[in-house]
């Protein structure tokens, strides 16, 4: 479980997150809505452990461990993984090596995982070097497949992705979060749902991802404050019709 209690975060001198309370139980996926600059990425980066996001108050607990001051790689090893919107290029580091790094010494079928994202041709290229928006997303997902985190943070997974790839990316995220529907011998879909352990927190702007990934809850972040928690589809419709300002008035 991920438990965030009364979290306050500063980036430089600016307070970017205020009094955040959030709980994601095993098997749950939450969608994070919010206008530009509302602090969505800041929340993900704080959970991942980026040191420039300074926690000034509150606490983050993951799997029962207080991770508020844990360095980023220890959080990764504890099972937190992130899909970035604009990750940096690392010159000379091949995508194949990066996927192996994600596997953390486990023997993984890099080729096979890349194949599911039509990404084999990129394995010998430097990671993120000259990748388009959609290619970055596919690369990030291949990395997460190898990393197998228990809590997956997605920063706008559909941005910059063309229509052809959006369903591939959507269904892959759904699979990573154990939310895909497929027959499994001797197991009902209900049983599969009950056994779900993966947790997800997905930032979306457009809501397109909701066509592919089911979610348990939607959260609206506005001016650094979590202002609304509701059914994600309801929230999305409300934002679409009324805008964020109106939507956050119905504080729960």
């Amino acid at each position, binding site marked *: 479980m991920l438990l965030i209690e009364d979290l306050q975060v500063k980036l430089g001198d600016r307070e970017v997150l205020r009094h955040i309370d959030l709980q994601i139980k095993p098997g749950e996926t939450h969608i994070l809505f919010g206008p530009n600059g509302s602090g969505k990425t800041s929340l993900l980066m704080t959970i*991942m*452990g*980026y*040191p420039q996001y300074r926690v000034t108050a509150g606490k983050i607990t993951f799997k029962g461990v207080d991770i508020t001051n844990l*360095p*980023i*790689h220890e*959080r*990764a*090893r504890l099972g937190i*993984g*992130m899909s*970035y919107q604009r*990750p*940096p*290029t*690392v*010159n*000379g*580091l091949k995508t194949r*090596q*990066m996927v192996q*790094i*994600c596997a*953390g010494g486990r023997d993984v079928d890099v080729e096979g995982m890349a194949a599911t994202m039509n990404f084999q041709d990129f394995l010998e290229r*430097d990671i993120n070097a000259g990748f388009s928006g959609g290619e970055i997303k596919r690369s990030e997902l291949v*990395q997460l497949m190898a*990393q197998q985190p228990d809590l997956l943070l997605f920063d706008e997974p559909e941005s910059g992705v063309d229509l052809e790839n959006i369903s591939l990316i959507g269904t892959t995220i759904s699979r990573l979060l154990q939310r895909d529907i497929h027959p499994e011998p001797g197991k009902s879909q209900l049983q599969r749902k009950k056994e779900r352990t993966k947790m997800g927190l997905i930032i979306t702007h457009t809501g397109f991802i909701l066509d592919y990934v089911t979610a348990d809850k939607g959260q609206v972040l506005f001016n650094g404050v979590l202002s609304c928690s509701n059914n994600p589809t309801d929230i999305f419709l409300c934002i679409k019709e009324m805008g964020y300002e109106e939507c956050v008035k119905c504080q729960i």
Partner: protein
Amino acid sequence: MPDLKEKAREAKDKKAAIGPDVDLASFTAEPVAHAYVKDLKTLPVIDQGRLIQAGIDTSEGGRSGTYIQMDTAVVHAHAKQEGLEVIPIKEALKKHAWAREHYWKLVAVDADKYTAAAELNLHDGYVIRALPGAKAVWPVQACLYLDKDNISQYVHNLIIAEEGSELHVITGCATSPRLKRGLHVGISEFFVRKNAKLSFTMIHHWAEEVMVRPRSVGIVEEGGLFLNNYICMKPVKSLQMYPTTHLVGRGAVARFYSILVGTPGSEMDVGGRILLKAEETRAEIIARAITNGGKIINRGDLIGEVPGIKAHLECKGLILNGGVIHAIPELQGQADGVEMSHEAAVGKIAQEEILYLMSRGLSEEEATSTIVRGFLSVDIPGLPPQLKAEIDRAVDLSSKDVM
């Protein structure tokens, strides 16, 4: 060759254009005897270890030939493949007119006091030649080894890829653990004849009090390809070199790659100059420099003399923990229609990259060394996979020390 001796004597006090001056008289130039070794496996284990680090395979399994010189004496020289020749230069100059014709053909004997001293004190060196049409299956390996403390080693090498041949050379320079101080002066002349292909990979492995002054010039004829890789990741007191290549035939190509690591107390002044003198010639100079306390001057000079040439220079430096990197890229276009470019950057490791890798589970140290390793790896088109592996191995061994 009385002419050469005369010219050399006249230049014996002529300081080099760049680099700190070396007092040659403070080193001994007296010949040191070492017995010829038939089987490299019989060398002392400690020396074998040093040779392996400098890229020498003592089993000779994947090699077409071997040349090893310790101090002033040739301890091994032979070619395993038909069409290839590996001969000590003193012997070659005595026996073969063609060797004499190539000797001091490209490098001027009176260029500076180092070239002059190499002529006056010649302590052998190698001649490696691929006969016309010969294709080397494996690289030829050569090693110039400094063993005796305070020695000065003066060598002269000729590397000749005759018309239509293919030759790969891996050469390592190393010092024995016994040696503290020394001087290495090496003259190298490269001849890449019409449609020939030569790759020359040099791995330097010196010691903290060693001075190094290589002097090399190459020539590439029509359709020829010259790949020149240089790796120096170990401490050295002072290294200064400015290898130069002339592309004289239509479509000739030269590519220089260098990887330099400057440790505290080391001073490296390494350049590369390529003159594009014929149409459709191509040149590329790519350098990667890392310092963790040493001083590195990285020069690159491309001179396009005729239209229709293409040349690119890339020089990237990373300062990890103090030290200086001075990048001096130069381009000279002397005709309409040349295409020349350069790219130079000196900086530090981006924090963003470290954090990205850490979020995939690497510790900060692991992330940093992964980035350094990536920075040092350059793709070298046309290099046989075996040599690529050799370079990777040298970089892996040394990048651990860098951290």
